[in-house]
């Protein structure tokens, strides 16, 4: 029998016992709906998590450190290659080399130092780090009060909320942080901080810059600034900085205890020649050395390219660190979560498939005579089998379609309900529900396959029916 005939007969047979077949189809729908609901919850949560992480800039950043520097992030420290003492140092030329690697968006030196900031004549010791202009798009500055640096050389700072609290003499409460950033920002924005820092100066004899002009006009370190001797002098400097922004979130959460609370524009920070921790080890180094960076942050175009870029940088003789490993275990976690949710969702579908078997076996008993007639007028075993398969398949597809719609609706309802709850808790709404197109397709196909499998036994039984006995049956 041809497929259009088969489908037509199957649909007409399904219509004949409409109630029973509808109930069976509803059973499949509920099964599919629970499967879709469970899986889209898992997928939604995963998307939410990776969206958050992606925005934080954690996933597209590789931190490069020199192998000379023993104090690195501790991950994947490679013992192979040149010995630490002979390996390359991170200077401007390596930064440019890394920046020219394929798929690298930018590479910038990490400038970070602990120093004193004076606000209304009170000193505050804190970690300061420099940010490139591209950091503007970082999630942490999304809901910032004030604005980001007006230029890469502006004498401006963005401070983190915790530091703002410190400046205003407020102690952060433990537990739920209810302090409003806006209330912290309004007395601070536009105010001035005085930063006292140690400037590394080539040597008093060769330096052309006076103490006063050094702060603002010092040239950017580059290859031409070779040092005459191994030694350099350290000069105490002051720099006035205007507070232009107060950030709510912590942009450097990945760095843990070494994270900075005050941020400077990168070019400005470079021009200051602030004494960095690594400089102390450079004292004994050859005089031709350029100023070295403690580490370089490399931002890649796409998180999926991180591994390749890391490998390329390692080949150059540096240590690298990225949060990719952390993201791997996150993916693993979600794979397991999806599996469990899928299993629970499938249970309902398994129950529904028993419903299909039951309905079709009942149909065989009921339509015994009809099967006998069909065989008597020339239907082959295959025709009868295909007819029952078609009925099971039709119920499966229909149940799948209705089920996906139902699952989607359930998801929307839960999402809505949760967001109402979140709103009451004064939390921003979240979209932790996702029904991707592949899930829609896969759910319907899955329902279809499960239905066909359920139809296997009834169809086989119907096909084997003895026509003589079936015709005798009243």
């Amino acid at each position, binding site marked *: *029998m*041809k497929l*259009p*005939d088969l489908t037509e*007969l199957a649909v*007409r*047979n399904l219509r*004949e016992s409409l109630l029973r077949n509808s109930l069976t189809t509803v059973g499949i729908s509920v099964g599919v709906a629970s499967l879709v609901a469970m899986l889209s919850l898992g997928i939604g949560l995963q998307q939410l998590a990776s969206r958050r992480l992606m925005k934080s800039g954690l996933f597209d950043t590789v931190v490069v450190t020199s192998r000379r520097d023993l104090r690195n992030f501790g991950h994947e420290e490679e013992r192979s290659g040149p010995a630490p003492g002979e390996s390359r140092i991170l200077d401007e030329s390596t930064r440019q080399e890394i920046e020219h690697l394929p798929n690298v968006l930018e590479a910038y030196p990490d400038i970070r130092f602990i120093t004193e900031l004076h606000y209304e004549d009170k000193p505050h010791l804190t970690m300061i780090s420099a940010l490139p202009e591209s950091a503007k798009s970082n999630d942490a500055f999304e809901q910032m009060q004030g604005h980001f640096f007006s230029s890469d050389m502006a004498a401006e700072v963005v401070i983190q909320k915790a530091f703002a609290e410190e400046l205003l003499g407020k102690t952060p409460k433990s537990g739920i942080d209810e302090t409003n950033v806006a209330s912290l920002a309004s007395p601070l924005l536009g105010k001035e901080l005085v930063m006292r820092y140690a400037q590394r100066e080539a040597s008093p004899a060769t330096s052309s810059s006076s103490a006063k002009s050094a702060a603002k006009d010092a040239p950017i370190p580059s290859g031409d600034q070779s040092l005459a001797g191994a030694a350099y002098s350290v000069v105490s400097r002051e720099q006035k900085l205007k507070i232009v922004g107060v950030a709510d979130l912590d942009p450097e959460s990945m760095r843990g205890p070494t994270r900075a609370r005050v941020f400077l524009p990168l070019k400005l920070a470079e021009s200051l020649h602030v004494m960095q921790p690594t400089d102390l080890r450079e004292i004994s180094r050859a005089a031709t050395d350029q100023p070295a960076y403690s580490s370089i942050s490399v931002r890649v175009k796409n998180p999926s390219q991180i591994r390749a870029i890391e490998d390329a940088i390692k080949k150059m003789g540096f240590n690298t660190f990225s949060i990719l490993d952390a993201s791997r275990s996150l993916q693993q976690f979600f794979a397991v979560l999806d599996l469990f949710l899928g299993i629970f969702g499938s249970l309902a579908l398994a129950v529904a498939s028993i419903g299909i078997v039951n309905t079709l076996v009942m149909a065989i008993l009921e339509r015994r*005579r*009809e099967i*006998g*007639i*069909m*065989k*008597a*007028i*020339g*239907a*082959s*075993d*295959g*025709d009868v089998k295909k007819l029952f398969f078609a009925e099971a398949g039709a119920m499966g597809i229909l149940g799948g379609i209705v089920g996906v719609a139902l699952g989607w609706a359930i998801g929307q309802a839960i999402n809505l309900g949760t967001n109402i709850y979140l709103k009451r808790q004064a939390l921003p709404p979240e979209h932790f529900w996702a029904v991707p197109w592949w899930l829609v397709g896969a759910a319907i196909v899955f329902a279809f396959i499960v239905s066909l499998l359920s139809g296997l036994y009834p169809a086989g039984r119907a096909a084997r029916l003895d*026509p*003589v006995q079936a*015709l005798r049956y009243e």
Partner: protein
Amino acid sequence: MGTPGRSTPNGSPAIRAEQLCRHYRMGEAVIRAVDGLNLQVRAGEFVALLGSSGSGKSSVLNLIAGLDRPTSGSVVVHDRDLAKLSREELAGYRLRTVGMVFQSFNLIASMTLAENVELPMRFAEVDRGKRDSLAREALTRVGLQARMNHRPSELSGGEQQRAALARALINRPQLLLADEPTGNLDSRTGIEIMNMVREFNRQLGMTVVMVTHERALAERYADRLIFLADGKLVGDQANSVAASAARIEPSGREAVRP
């Protein structure tokens, strides 16, 4: 023994049964429904199988129809040994070589007459376009063109049996097998049906094997009467009455004694 006579074009009879047996096992007992039957039917012949209930006449018909398989012996229809056909081939044989009508009509209740008549064409994978006109033609032939879109339950017994005849003939089989076709009909309607069967037999040259327990009916229409008892052949006679009746114009007004 069957009377050798008119045969198929290549010389062999349309139906030939040799030492045909069909035994059923019922617990300890073995029921010999058909027990060593020898029978030949010529192409174009109208044969009536007579006997009391339990004589095995329906079993013989089922064996010829390919609905059942012999325990031993053989049934050869148009040179094909049914016992040697696969299930698939047997289904094809039922589809194209045999048309069947039953005492209880056996139309599918959920389908209209047109759909019932169309059904064997679906199995035979006849083109969709052709099926409609062929079904209409067949129903017109049995006088049911006005009832095409009715369901069997909306029709009288005679009308249902006429639709069943149309269905049996739709794939142009060589053999028409009828199992008590008038059993559920009043005598007047029965005659109507029998006249149609004889018309197909005479005009289309179809071989007809009819099972009945009504001797009068058999004598009136069949060319040959075969008597069965306990699965064995007990009588085989040419019917001169039918031969003469055939010459008379068939008329529904004639009464038949049961």
